[in-house]
């Protein structure tokens, strides 16, 4: 299967038909759910970018163009599995049914923020929803995911870990630690590289070097590797299911390179116009994952323009409602941000004397 690291696994062809050996893992209802997940994510991103312009949050990062990767992967995971995500996998939470309002509470750092205003917006955490606390430091989460998976195996558990990293961050040395440990201990983990072709202003080539693909990195460690069309919801689900099943049966790790494209800016602090041709995003390499899944459903006769319009209106309303509810709990610059008195908690399980003294000095 070595060539699978150099080719591109696809199911949805240009006509929108599902073809080839990887097709057939999803029924129509599941396809519709997937479409709704992706529409919800895109609507959510859209709303939060607007909230940022309105000063309700200090920062935001969208997943425009990459919706299929996290959304389809999440639907292939089972309860109890643990993701070690980056800041661009909000699709895992949305497809996993995590309340939108909780996400926005975190983004607004408001009085209901589950992270108590401590974290940069989008740095979510939810153990219950299998989403490990996002780190601002690139790459550290990969080896942690391998450790979590090793622990699951040591405990005789069947839960698996799913590790996430971007193309640029694969250059970080921690990536190597993850590969070595995953290989040596045959940990039940899926190692996901989201190759959206850009790392802020730097093209994927700087991290990939002269190697043909990121997936090929797996071979040096004897780790099976797949390279998959990440804008093809059906292919993402099929490949994810295969790798997750391998891990669950304790047959070892799988490395998957998801080929996609960062259609938007890196973050609200970034303007791609400065470093990449504006037509590029227009051409949208691999196509819009939402359009592709929609066309497929239409080809199957299971979806119409009308259905689509209704669905869009639906998710927009859901997102708007969540945003309004969150806003009622405050936004970053409103008075009801989470209380600073809590900023001395959770440094340790129990507050040591020096922090108690400092909290008093701070006036709490």
């Amino acid at each position, binding site marked *: 299967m070595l060539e699978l690291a150099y080719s591109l696994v696809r199911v949805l062809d240009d006509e929108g038909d599902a073809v080839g050996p990887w097709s057939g893992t999803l029924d129509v209802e599941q396809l519709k759910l997937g479409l709704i997940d992706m529409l919800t994510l895109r609507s959510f991103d859209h709303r939060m970018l607007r909230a940022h312009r309105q000063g309700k949050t200090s920062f935001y990062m969208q997943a425009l163009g990459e919706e299929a990767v996290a959304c389809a992967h999440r639907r292939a995971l089972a309860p109890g599995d643990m993701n070690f995500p980056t800041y661009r996998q909000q699709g895992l939470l949305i497809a996993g049914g995590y309340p939108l309002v909780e996400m926005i509470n975190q983004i607004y750092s408001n009085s209901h923020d589950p992270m*108590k205003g*401590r974290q*940069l917006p989008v740095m979510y955490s939810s153990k219950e929803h299998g989403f490990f606390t996002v780190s601002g*430091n690139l*790459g550290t989460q990969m080896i942690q995911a391998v450790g979590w998976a090793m622990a699951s195996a040591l405990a005789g558990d069947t839960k698996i870990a799913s590790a996430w990293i971007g193309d*640029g961050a694969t250059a970080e040395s*921690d990536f190597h630690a993850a590969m070595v440990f995953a290989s040596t201990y045959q940990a039940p983990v899926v190692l996901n590289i989201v190759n959206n072709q850009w790392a802020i*202003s730097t093209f994927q080539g700087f991290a990939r070097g002269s190697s043909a693909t990121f997936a090929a990195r797996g071979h040096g460690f004897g780790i099976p590797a797949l390279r998959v069309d990440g804008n093809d919801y059906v292919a993402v689900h099929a490949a994810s299911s295969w790798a997750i099943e391998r891990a669950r049966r304790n047959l070892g790790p799988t490395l998957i390179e998801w080929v996609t494209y960062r259609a938007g800016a890196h973050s609200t602090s970034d303007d791609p116009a400065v470093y990449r041709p504006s037509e590029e995003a227009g051409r949208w390499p691999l196509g819009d994952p939402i359009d592709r899944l929609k066309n497929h459903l239409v080809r199957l006769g299971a979806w119409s323009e009308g259905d689509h319009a209704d669905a869009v209106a639906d998710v927009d309303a859901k997102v708007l409602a969540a945003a309004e509810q969150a806003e009622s709990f405050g936004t970053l610059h409103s008075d009801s941000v989470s209380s600073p008195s809590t900023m*001395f908690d959770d440094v340790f399980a129990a507050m040591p004397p020096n922090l108690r003294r400092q909290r008093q000095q701070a006036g709490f």
Partner: protein
Amino acid sequence: MPAMTMIEAIRDAHHVAMERDDTVIVFGQDVGFFGGVFRCTQGLQARFGDHRCFDAPINEGGIVGAAIGMGAYGLRPCVEIQFADYMYPAYDQIVSEAARVRYRSAGDFTVPITIRMPTGGGIFGGQTHSQSPEALFTHVSGLKTVIPSNPYDAKGLLITAIEDDDPVIFLEPKRLYNGPFDGHHDRPIVPWSRHPLSDVPAGHYTIPFGQARIHRPGDQMTVLTYGTLVHVAVAAAEETGIDAEIIDLRTLVPLDIDTITESVAKTGRCIVAHEATLTSGFGAELCAVLQESTLYSLEAPIVRVAGWDTPYPHAHEWTYFPGPARLGAAMTALMEA
């Protein structure tokens, strides 16, 4: 001279150093075509070509490790770590290698490199875009640690750093990039153009390491600080009406012990202030040195005003940041002590 911002002064220092010495090269994440996320290297690639200013993969240890090898070959790399918070993956190369190579090879190999990194909070960057790790460098023998508080010093000190034959950690208070921020985050930003230290000479000049700068002379107490808090201290002095002598250390290693000892011996009262976490921060070293050199002239214990012993919290950064109110209160209390 036209006034320069800190960013323009840092850019200019790169230009001057690269013009004079073509062994000076610059690289780091997004520093090439893009010119760096804070634009500090903008224009260098266009001017000097992509052999002397280029992008690097996202691997801080790789950036510093490669720079060490280049230094051993005979180049003078000046590299950028995108945020000081991301220097940890490079910490082994900095501490075990850059700082030790001259010593362990008895001078056979040297590491004439400069490692720049934006430091400090105040931009709602949360705990991974706000850190001040200077004390993690000052404890390491073989490293020099520099932190400018204004455009004039930034240019002169950076040229000195690049021309220095040993590894230099160059910390850039990111909240000062575009103006002399005094901690009043609720007030409009004051541009550098209104500040005398934005008057930056053209061309080459250096500022020797180990010479603190008396930023504001005074008699009632001494405030020892560096980086952003230099401007916070000025605000606190004005607002409390306390005639404080504010000293900008500029370089932590080497440390200008004479200047600070003289000042504290004169005023008898001292506050050391920094943004970094209190415990084992560089303020502790200053207290240790000063209680030794000035104990008998101290009217009261030296007071440390610093960031709390917590990570830098996003929404609460102004509670974390030692601003003019906190510093001013400590100054008032010290006058009464």
